């Protein structure tokens, strides 16, 4: 039933790829506009450095950055939920800060941390931390006042209300936050690498650009997108298995 829903999208994507393929063949300038087939071919040729060196480097930045964001985001969301003053002070700032193009600050971090992974990690954290925090906070707040009151009539303390009510209520929001944050964190890491690194898919893409290897520029980007899609679909799968109540609250 569900699978058929994706069919129009698949056909559309395939059609776009075919247009790209023939368009690029007509333009005939592979160094700036390679065809999809050329990119796949290049991906295969470059599999050795891409998969053994650059993909692990990017994934390390992404992983560390995401982990820091989750830990900080969860902590801050809980603090804002517990202390009204913290909420009043921080929440509006968080919302406003999301309009800042954080990625534009990336060169600054490269200046501060140089070519180490920390400049990339910082970009990743800065991009993902705020949306994770805000989404989780909304999740904790999605527990209805009625339900909190009911818990009080059972004699529950704040600790029990948190673990038995707020946390489960926030779980669907956690998954939404992850699905949003993972592609963002990969983009963040790649931008950081693009600006200054000695390894990683962003760095590799840039190196290929200097060699006017169009397909070589695209290959790592295709790889990044594929990885992001795979991780997001794993998360979606887990979400479907674990969260059967979305929207019931």
């Amino acid at each position: 039933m569900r699978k058929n829903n994706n069919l129009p999208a698949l056909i559309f994507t395939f059609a776009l790829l075919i247009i790209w393929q023939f368009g690029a063949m007509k333009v005939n300038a592979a160094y700036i506009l390679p065809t999809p087939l050329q990119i796949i071919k290049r991906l295969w040729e470059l599999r050795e450095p891409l998969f053994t060196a650059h993909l692990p480097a990017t994934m390390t930045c992404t992983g560390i950055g995401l982990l820091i964001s989750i830990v900080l985001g969860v902590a801050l969301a809980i603090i804002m939920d517990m202390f009204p003053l913290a909420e009043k002070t921080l929440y509006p700032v968080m919302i406003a800060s999301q309009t800042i193009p954080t990625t534009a600050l990336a060169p600054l971090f490269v200046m501060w941390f140089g070519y180490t992974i920390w400049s990339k990690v910082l970009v990743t954290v800065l991009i993902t931390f705020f949306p994770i925090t805000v989404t989780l906070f909304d999740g904790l707040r999605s527990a209805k006042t009625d339900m909190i009151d009911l818990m009080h009539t059972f004699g529950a303390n704040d600790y029990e209300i948190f673990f038995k009510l707020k946390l489960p209520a926030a779980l669907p929001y956690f998954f939404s936050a992850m699905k949003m944050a993972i592609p963002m964190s990969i983009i963040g890491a790649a931008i950081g690498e693009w600006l200054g690194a000695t390894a990683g898919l962003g760095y590799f893409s840039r190196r290929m650009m200097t060699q006017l290897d169009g397909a070589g520029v695209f290959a790592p980007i295709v790889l990044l997108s594929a990885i992001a899609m795979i991780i997001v679909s794993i998360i979606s799968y887990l979400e479907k298995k674990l969260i059967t109540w979305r929207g019931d609250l």
Partner: protein
Amino acid sequence: MLEFKDVSFKYDSDDYYMLENLSFHINKGEFVSVIGASGCGKSTIFRLICKLLECENGQILVDNQSIDQRKGYCGYMPQKDLLFPWRTVGENLKLPMQIQKTFTKEQMTEKVKSTLEKVGLSGLENKKPSELSGGMRQRAAFARTLLTGSDLLLLDEPFSALDFLTRISMQEWLLEQWEREHKTVLFITHDVEEALFLSGRVLVIEDLPIKKLVSFDVPCGYPRNRESLTKPEMLSLREQLIKMLRREANLI
């Protein structure tokens, strides 16, 4: 069982009192309905009894003891079932016991099983609330209220969201439950017929702010059936109550 002694209350955001020196009394084992127009403060009375709100003056006693510093003296069933959607029916029913921590896991499972049987939901402990119908969900919520172990049950318009036929069968079901469990029930409704069918006594909110509850004995014994509602003395009480509510509704 339950006693209000000169209780006054006002919401912080309001400049008028909701309750003013209100006193009334409910005996053990009674089934009493409180009726009043929407927004007149019925739920506020319940919220005071279960300490979700604090009285400004006066005292509320349950079993001749002040409710201050006490827990577990009343079971509150709100209008919405508020079953947690991530818990199965069985886990939802365990919730009050998990918080009270007086029973072992095995005892809880056993109690859930027998309570589900009593309320007519046997074998459904592993279903998610979303798999139940509206009436079944209310039964599950009632079972959860029973499992608080309290002798005083506060039911706040529990059937008002159900369709008519489900509602009347739930009313009959509730009477069976009450006759078997020997609990004291305080039942809020704005439906005069529901109040007459269920209760031994009806308390009417007549005036705002609430200074007194006018008590009417329902002229009909238990067990009852729907025909009891058509007795002439029931019909005339019904008309009298509707008239009072109408007058009150104009005040809000």
